[in-house]
């Protein structure tokens, strides 16, 4: 049944064309690691690796959700504020001696509820995701400051430190959670009808609709999932700093989006792989860690991160152009 046509030969030849978008980022990561290990003393220490992996776990967990959102052609700017919100609500509950499991459950529910709110605004009022989540991003951060009065919340149960600071053997628990989330996300995106619909909506929303997809339902599911992951990340952050910080998660949305885009996910939707996003996440983590070790000041770090984001997008667009020329 599979016919050998001329086309298959053409494709085979195309395979040998270097795909910079996937290999470029890996090469850049390797080069960066070499530079940091030469220029700093402790970059290569096992301790530092544990450190980096802890740092990336929060961005990594959220990147799974963000990847799916961006695949549909949307974006979620409110994720950083949600991390802050879930972080301080969980802290408030725990410092008021709620049983830990109830606090965790309620916090997860809060995350899902915020996701549902985003989806509802997108679905019912047809507000584009970027504006919807910009609005909730600003408002939620306000709520965080109202809850805390601008002061950090201390007095968390000793046991809960395990989530952000504990480890099994040498592997931090937060990293294990991140790996679980990635595997879960990978299966969801690649092996389930839901994943197919996500790619479909991003590829052509109209085709998806005419293929029988209830777009609104999928948007609800998707943003609720992102909210859930945001709540998980929020609690890990809280546990790591052992307090509920009102500024927790501030600006994380940008790191997350940058990591996803670095991983080759097209911001116009429909194209990208979760397996590459993990490299984007590691890249961002190593970059931040290395710059810190080199004592590069924070202002310059921002400049570098922004430039990296732009470079990633430019490489992405260039490689896409090249592909489309091949097919024309």
């Amino acid at each position, binding site marked *: 049944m599979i016919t050998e046509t001329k086309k298959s030969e053409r494709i085979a030849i195309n395979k040998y064309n270097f795909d910079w978008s996937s290999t470029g980022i890996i090469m850049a990561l390797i080069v960066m690691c070499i530079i940091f290990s030469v220029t700093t003393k402790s970059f290569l220490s096992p301790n530092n690796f544990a450190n980096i992996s802890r740092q990336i776990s929060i961005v990594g967990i959220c990147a799974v959700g963000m990847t799916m959102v961006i695949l549909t052609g949307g974006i979620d700017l409110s994720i950083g504020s949600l991390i802050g919100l879930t972080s301080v609500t969980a802290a408030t509950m725990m410092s008021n001696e709620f049983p830990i499991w109830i606090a965790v459950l309620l916090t997860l529910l809060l995350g899902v509820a915020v996701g549902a709110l985003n989806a509802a605004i997108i679905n019912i009022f047809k507000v584009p995701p970027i504006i919807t989540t910009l609005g909730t991003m600003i408002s939620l951060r306000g709520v965080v400051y109202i809850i805390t009065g601008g002061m950090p919340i201390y007095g968390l149960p000793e046991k809960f430190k395990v989530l952000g600071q504990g480890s099994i053997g040498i592997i931090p628990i937060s990293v294990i959670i991140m790996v679980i989330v990635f595997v879960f996300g990978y299966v969801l995106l690649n092996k389930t*009808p839901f994943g197919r619909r996500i790619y479909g909506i991003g590829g052509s929303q109209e085709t998806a609709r*005419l293929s029988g997809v209830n777009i609104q339902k999928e948007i609800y599911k998707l943003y609720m999932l992102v909210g859930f992951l945001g709540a998980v990340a929020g609690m890990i952050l809280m546990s790591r700093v052992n307090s509920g910080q009102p500024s927790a998660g501030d600006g994380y949305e940008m790191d997350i989006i940058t990591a996803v885009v670095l991983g080759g996910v097209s911001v116009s939707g429909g194209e990208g792989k979760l397996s590459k996003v993990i490299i984007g996440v590691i890249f961002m983590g190593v970059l931040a860690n290395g710059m810190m070790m080199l004592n590069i000041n924070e202002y310059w770090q921002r400049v570098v991160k922004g430039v990296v984001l732009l470079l990633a997008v430019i490489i992405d667009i260039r490689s896409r152009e090249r592909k489309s020329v091949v097919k024309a």
Partner: protein
Amino acid sequence: MDSPILELKNITKLYPGVVALDNVSLCFRKGEVHAIVGENGAGKSTFIKIITGAIKQTSGQLFFEGKEITDNSPQKAIELGITTIYQEINLFQNLSVAENIYYNRYDTKYGLINFKELEIKAKTVLDKLGVDINPSELVKSLTVGYQQLVEIAKSLSRTVKVMIMDEPSACLTNNELKYLFDIVKRLREEGVAIIYISHRLEEIFQICDKVSVFRDGHYIKTMDVAETNKSELIRLMVNRELTESYPCIQLQKGEKVLEVKNLTTEFIKDVSFSAYKGERLGFAGLVGSGRTETARAIFGADKLLSGEIYVHGKKVNIYSPEDAIKKGIVLIPEDRKKQGVFLYRSVRDNIVFSYAPKIANLLGIISKKKECTVCDEQISKLSIKTPSLEQLARNLSGGNQQKLVLGKWLLMNCDIIIFDEPTRGIDVGAKQEIYQLMNELSENGKVIIIISSELPELIGMSDRIIVMSEGRKIGELEGRDITQERILELASETRRIVK
């Protein structure tokens, strides 16, 4: 004979791994309508893009009025007087006709646009075309056919020496087509060289002087239209004998499967009809007459304002395509690329897209094995030509893309299949296959609803035809009554009454 206005010598275009055009030489003369034909992928588009400066040839030379052009670009081509009319409308829907015609070339007075002057100038161009359109009207209020005419007016508002028409008739109905032909004739008399690309071979015999055939990136031959015929062209295009005919089947009218009563949406009014088991029901009418909109209403793609739909005698509520599919109604939409397939997804994904939940296990994970079996089945059943299941849909030809959409629906156990412009932009060989498939489905008791702007196709493929105009059902033709004249009469007569 005078020297050619445009000449291409030994043009070759290579893409990594693909020879899109192989050493093509061709020339075009003033006052000549020159058709270019070939199956999809024959290299026509590449050839045109090189002339318009959209892409650059790998080797070969381009001469315009005897002078070589070395730095061709879209801008340069327009300056030289080479313009192109595409099958898609590229107008600003929210601007007036005059503004569209002179977009970005406005006359200004003290830095402000002089709209009066603009409209007078636009009127002159439109009059020259013999078109009766008010220049101050918004483009979105015009029918697609008229919009196409505005496109032509737009290109004629500059100096035109070579006009390329890329499938200009794809969206036009027969009436509008006649209009287009008049314009082509007028341009020819004025000495414009016209390059005409169309999948509808009849048109070439009606309007063109010369025809060049392309196949697989090679130039095959140029002939005088008067000295060739349709079957020779088809043979040269596909390199095998093929007749463009409509396979006929005998209908046994079965039970009533679909009945719609007083269907009303934003676009259609009070449409009622029934369809029977194994019937092939055609919908005729001008573009915008409500054919597609009726289909979309039944399929739940447009919001129903009032009306009832019965499937197998039972009243059904359809609020979305999701509902329609559950009731066994499916639609193969007119815009294949934007509504039919996911261009950047694999063949496998496209086929099982809607069926996926049914081959998922308890955990919701799709069984790869079942998925491949199901896809292979459809691929062999519909003879979809693809190197592998993982090939992206965008790399398939139009006909094979259309089959992907059909395959997706055949998995869904549907009774009523609506084909909206099933063969638009599809080459001759693939068309035959699509017709064959439609007939097989009807023989298996499916209701086939066909919407088409190509009258011969519609007449050849339908047992009964409903004619629409201005969003209403105007008439119904069956058996011997189905003739091109009768359909045109119905589709256009009422139009006059309404106006």
